């Protein structure tokens, strides 16, 4: 284990994170709302911590192994989530330390579960910091999902090892830096496009930037208590639906589309991908089965159905209306939709479409095998045979995911929360969606939960974000042996 290398890497991430706190300071300066010094102070504290870590570790590491990778990824999320709470504390926004930590973790993991209310009256700098945390978290996730997870082979993601943009090397550092540059450029460009579209459709500049950051990161923080419901404009809602959907697509696909040019074969690039097709079909089916009972009982309009369904199914967590008021069955379907989540290699959460697709294909194969016990029927993805070890990893992932969900739900319930709230808050946090049902529905927020429940849910968010295995591998004694 290269502890110095790990410390240095965490240190440099922390320094950059601290530096990014200057941006909300600029926002505060622009809007004359105070808090300039608070953000600068927070930035300095965080950067100083990072700087000390870097100095202690000496120089940049030459090479990092697989195991270092696991440790860095897990530590980075935990450390940055904790330090991101500093501005909430220096500005005095959060009432308790737990609230500050919860909001920050929720931001950095792009969950979008909030303990704040009265957002409309909040200083812009603080709102901006929330959105920015999601955006920064999204950047981290993109690199994590496209470059690091496949290399570490988390939950079957070795499937995508060869497909990430950038050089196919087996060196973690080289791969991450190369791939990172390409991805971040795309991420930035996409965000800019969304800002322009939102702004031209009627949002204020500030709202457009904030919502664009949260859309691309599939986060779901808003600058208004009513979330996207504040904007009563159909084109704006449709644009948001489109961009949420687009952000939920594997970034490797976007990259492939970009490389081939925006020519006539653009749809082909997307439609030749099994996961994308499954994702599209899944969305259609969800919208239909959520829409039918909702429209039939006249509890919501079609644009609300479209928006809320896509927001939940991509694990964004924006809302235009209180979908908890819809018939019970729609709530259950949305609950399941959270688990499936968006595509792998995107900023979306949940179990990821490709895993669900492969599990489904494997399940169907097993039924076939009952009839023909000796037939060899391979599971395929994009025409390629999926190897046994990948399928095994997928299953391990699925089982551990469900087990973790149950444990978190039981712990939350044990803190005295009712059953529905416990189940849905556990799901909404682990899948990084944000709003659940019951006490944490779209019309409520997480402020009223006991501190213990908040702590458990924070853990759930990080766990879900790290695709579970990255965390659990640290608990295996063998991991720490030389």
């Amino acid at each position, binding site marked *: 284990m290269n502890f110095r290398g790990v410390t240095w890497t965490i240190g440099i991430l922390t320094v950059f994170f601290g530096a990014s706190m200057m941006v909300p300071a600029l926002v505060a300066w622009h809007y004359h709302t105070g808090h300039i010094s608070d953000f600068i102070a927070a930035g300095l504290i965080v950067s100083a911590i990072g700087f000390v870590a870097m100095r202690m570790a000496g120089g940049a590491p030459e090479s990092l192994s697989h195991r270092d990778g*696991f440790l860095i990824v897990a530590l980075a999320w935990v450390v940055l989530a904790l330090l991101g709470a500093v501005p909430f504390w220096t500005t005095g926004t959060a009432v308790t330390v737990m609230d500050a930590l919860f909001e920050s973790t929720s931001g950095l993991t792009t969950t979008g579960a909030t303990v704040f209310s009265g957002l409309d009256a909040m200083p812009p700098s603080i709102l901006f910091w929330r959105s920015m945390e999601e955006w920064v978290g999204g950047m981290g996730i993109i690199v994590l999902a496209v470059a690091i997870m496949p290399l*570490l082979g988390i939950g079957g993601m070795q499937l995508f090892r060869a497909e990430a943009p950038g050089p196919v090397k087996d060196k973690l550092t080289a791969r991450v830096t190369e791939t990172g540059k390409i991805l971040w450029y795309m991420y930035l460009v996409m965000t800019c496009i969304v800002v322009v579209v939102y702004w031209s459709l009627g949002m204020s500049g500030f709202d457009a930037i904030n919502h664009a950051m949260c859309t691309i990161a599939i986060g779901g923080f808003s600058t208004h208590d009513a979330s996207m419901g504040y904007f009563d404009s159909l084109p704006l809602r449709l644009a948001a639906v489109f961009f949420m959907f687009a952000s939920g697509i594997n970034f490797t696909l976007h990259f492939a589309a970009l490389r081939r040019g925006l020519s006539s074969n653009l749809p082909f690039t997307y439609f030749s991908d099994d996961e994308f097709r499954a994702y599209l079909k899944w969305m259609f089916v969800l919208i239909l089965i959520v829409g039918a009972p909702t429209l039939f009982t006249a509890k919501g309009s079609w644009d609300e159905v479209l928006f809320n369904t896509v927001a939940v199914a991509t694990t964004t967590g924006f809302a235009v209306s209180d979908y908890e008021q819809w018939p019970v069955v729609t709530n*259950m379907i949305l609950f*399941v939709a959270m688990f499936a989540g968006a595509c792998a290699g995107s900023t979306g959460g949940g179990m990821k479409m490709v895993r669900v697709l492969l599990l*489904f294909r494997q*399940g169907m194969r097993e039924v076939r095998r*009952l009839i023909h016990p000796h037939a060899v029927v391979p599971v395929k993805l994009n025409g390629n045979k999926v190897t046994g070890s990948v399928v095994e990893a997928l*299953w391990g992932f699925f089982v551990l995911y469900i087990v973790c969900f149950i444990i978190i739900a039981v712990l939350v319930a044990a803190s005295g929360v009712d059953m529905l709230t416990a189940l849905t808050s556990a799901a909404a946090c682990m899948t990084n969606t944000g709003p659940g049902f019951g006490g944490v529905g779209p019309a409520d927020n997480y402020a009223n939960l006991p501190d213990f429940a908040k702590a458990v849910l924070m853990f759930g968010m990080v766990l879900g974000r790290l695709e579970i*295995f990255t965390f659990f591998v640290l608990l295996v004694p063998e991991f720490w042996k030389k």
Partner: protein
Amino acid sequence: MHVRGIIWILALLCMIYGLGMLVTACVALASASHSVVMFGGYGAVLVLLAGAVSLFSGPAPKHLTHRDGFLMVSLAWLLLSLLGAVPFVISGVSHTFGDAMFESVSGLTTTGATVLTGLDATDPAILFWRSMQQWLGGIGIVVLVVAVIPFLGAGGMQLLKAEVPGPVKDKLTSRVSQTAKALWGIYVGLTLACTLAYWWAGMSVFDAVNHAMSTLSTGGFSTHDASFGYYRLPALHIIAIVFMLAASVNFSLHFAAAHRGFSLRHYFLDDEFKFYILVLSVLILLIAWVALPLPGSSWDEVVFSAVSVITTTGFTVGDYSLWPSGCILLLLLMMLTGACAGSTSGGMKLIRVLLLFRHVRRELHRLIHPHGVMQLRIGDHTVPQGLAESLWGFAVLYFFSFFIVAVVVALSGVDILTSLSASAACLSNTGPGFGDVGPAGNYAALPDVSKWVLMLAMVVGRLEIYTFFVLFIPEFWRK
């Protein structure tokens, strides 16, 4: 497809069922019930008709294939459920055909979910018929899970193939009949022991017989509305706990132990049994930790409820749906896991859960040593790849079925807790759930649509999912 063979076996099962009716008629006679004629007549007709059909369909089948097995098992459960519903309709206990079917399916699948109330005042013959149905269902299940399902290889259960008592032959028919003979004795013996124990501890003879039948089948029908809560004697609760546990252990283990002089050591050599004891103890402690501080709860109630739920029996001594939501979630979880494979209990079965856990552990090790070769083991056996795969397929189909059933029940206008727990309680063949279908409520108030869906769930859960779903693959019906 060996149609004659399937008909012959179904006729045989109907005949056994008819004999069960005749026994019930005797009970009716003894209790001077007016339903003697109905049970006697119906039973006699069933026996004669089934005899005629089996004569007509020719000699006993010698060769049944995989496919015949699947079809026969599913048909048997459906047909017998239908036949078992008739007494409920004729006697007027159930007002609608749906209710009668629900009671019958719930009995035969040893679920124990009921739509009847006022049991204490109901005709004893009807009560006996309910228990009898569970008991017959129980023996059917033991044969099914010990002999048939491992043979068909549904959901990774070929794992148990080698451990089945009786000759290990690759012929379904001879295997089933041999195993049934071996297990029959154990099942009847345990039931008699349970009856005597209940009677000795203070139940009336009628109650003792009824409760023994529904204990050993892990069914959970009672002759009282208050279920086991009717009896306040701790001794009775302890006896029930012991026999529920006995019924939820793999019958192959009982068989092996019986051959080696009933030593407990033999049980502790079994991985699944050890895991069962571990899981049960941990969950009991967790539940006790949360539920004991509540006023009016006792160790007796906690242990009884936990055992009743994990064995998927569904007897109740108190209303555990009033416990804190943490306990409810744990109980819901226990329903879905169930107890050991090869027993009368429902749920996913712990051997599958154990293997899934071992699988996760191996994946974690594989992340650290990406090129290491690691085997999945259970007992002394290495689990082959194909088997592990069908196991996972089972897990997914199980969760999938659970959600679909819950969604459909919710669609019929039931609240979320009721629909989730009703789905879990029926799919796992437990019986009482939470919410409206909790220990204090029952299934009578649910809309008809959800009753039918839950019936389907009971059958699907009982047949270990695959056995049922395989019938819907077009390939199954091709030559």
